[in-house]
């Protein structure tokens, strides 16, 4: 089984759950920006949660399937169509040989994930298939997908269901994801330098809006809002950062570190976005406004556990439906 890129999109690349165990060498974890959408896309086709998928941005690639395969889309909604007819996200879809997947208009979200049953055959680098474009390793030749690239899939069983003439069949169940995302209110726990923020800045952090600027990418989201100030200029010694760390830049503006963040940094850390809200943040495009809500670390852990349970239920339900179809 294979698929071919007919037209490349913007930074469409193979990602998985990330590359852990090498941050002491400066190698960042990378992986899917929206790990929840990656897991949903995998669950819908019966894959293990961390199987490699294609992460796409808008405008996304045009893709031809060269053999029949079960696929799913999750995350953003870019008005997907197969052979010119609209197909929904969050459903498993059987596609025939020669079916062409295209995307039309950006409806919601910023990143869409394509899974294929069995997963892609990709380059493994340091225990992960995630594309690291800095090092040029992992995924597909360590780079974003380009026109004419052919990706092989590990698909073992060819779908046996007969297809309608239009080249695809939408399976009649849908992953319910409403409890997995929040809208615009992003929760955080205070960072080690939070205490050094001026009182007014602390107040503004949680009561005013911050816009996601155009200078936002897989490394980090630069925000625009009120200038925030520290009570004293604190000389920082470089130390580790993590996904979701909210740094205060010397300009007074904030940056939230995302999947391709540097492993260490020297800016004050005013907070850390909770893990459960990273997927929601990853789906907010430039121009959107967010506000921050402070929570305790214990709360953050409990929210993540709830999210994990919901994902597990979806995974179980999908594999049950697939095995009985």
């Amino acid at each position, binding site marked *: 089984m294979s698929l071919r890129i007919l037209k490349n999109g913007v930074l469409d690349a193979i990602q998985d759950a990330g590359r852990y165990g090498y*941050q*002491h*060498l400066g190698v960042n974890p990378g992986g899917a920006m929206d790990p929840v959408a990656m897991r949903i896309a995998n669950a819908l086709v019966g894959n293990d949660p961390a199987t490699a998928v294609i992460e796409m941005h808008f405008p996304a690639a045009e893709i031809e399937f060269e053999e029949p395969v079960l696929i799913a889309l999750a995350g953003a909604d870019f008005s997907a169509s197969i052979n010119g007819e609209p197909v929904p996200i969050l459903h498993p879809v059987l596609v025939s040989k020669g079916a062409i997947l295209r995307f039309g208009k950006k409806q919601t979200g910023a990143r869409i994930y394509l899974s294929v049953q069995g997963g892609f055959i990709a380059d493994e680098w340091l225990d992960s298939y995630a594309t690291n474009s*800095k*090092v040029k390793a992992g995924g597909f030749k360590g780079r974003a997908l380009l026109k004419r690239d052919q990706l092989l899939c590990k698909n073992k069983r060819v779908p046996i269901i007969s297809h309608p003439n239009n080249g695809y069949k939408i399976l009649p169940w849908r992953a319910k994801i409403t409890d997995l995302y929040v809208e615009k209110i992003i929760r955080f*726990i205070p960072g080690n330098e939070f205490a050094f923020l001026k009182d007014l800045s602390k107040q503004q952090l949680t009561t005013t809006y911050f816009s996601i600027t155009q200078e936002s990418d897989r490394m980090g989201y630069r925000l625009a809002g009120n200038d925030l100030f520290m009570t004293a200029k604190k000389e920082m010694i470089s130390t*580790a950062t993590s996904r979701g760390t909210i740094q205060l830049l010397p300009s007074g503006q904030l940056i939230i570190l995302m999947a391709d963040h*540097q492993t*260490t940094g020297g800016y004050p850390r005013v907070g850390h976005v909770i893990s459960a809200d990273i997927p929601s943040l990853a789906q907010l495009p430039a121009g959107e406004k967010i506000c921050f809500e402070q929570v305790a*670390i214990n709360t953050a852990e409990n929210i993540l556990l709830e999210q994990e349970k919901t994902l597990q239920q979806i995974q179980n339900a999908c594999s049950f439906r697939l095995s009985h179809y």
Partner: protein
Amino acid sequence: MAPVPYHIYPCGDHAITIELGVEIAVSINQKVIALFHYLTKNPLEGVKDIIPAYTTLTLVYDTSLLKKKYPEISVYERMSLRLQQIVEQVTTEVASASVTVKIPVCYDLSLAPDIASLAEIHQLTTAEIIQLHTGKTYRVYMIGFLPGFAYMGPVDKKIITPRRSEPRKWVPAGSIGIAGEQTGIYPFDSPGGWQLIGRTPVRIFDPGKREPCFLQPGNQVEFYSIPIAEFAKLQNT
């Protein structure tokens, strides 16, 4: 080892940091690296990454996995308690075990765009700068910024130089720089603000190798000067 004063804090809801000091000092970093080696050999359940820095060690962990397994207690609290127990047990007998790595550097003006201005600032000749830079053994305090970028130091007081006021948009891989009392090697072509005084032909980060990184945190590093002809020869091998 005498009890170490330390401070433990969350670095997000999936990472915890222990700070063993508040200044850049070999003695503090030795404790960090000792703890790093201990935790690498005796891994804690659910820990995915261990990141040493100048004065801190950060553990990145799988919050969902640990919370599912031990729902009755905060994962952070549990990690914090484990770290406290460990830091009070671990001894720092690492200095003797640390590895010394020798790195060839070509300080030729064509590969060292800032060496002349450094000489001027510090009232030294370029030969003296080379002598001072090659005359010391440096410690790899930490690796960060880019894959394989080693933060080393301290350089001789006579050549301590702040970063360039305008960072360069492009610094070639292998460039040796100085920033404050630190010295480092760019593993990749990248933007950068360090003062460039030479270049090494050694591939500092090679993704094709199982051990891709030429240097490890805690290594000792010595630079030695090579002529440009040898640089060209080594770069092609």
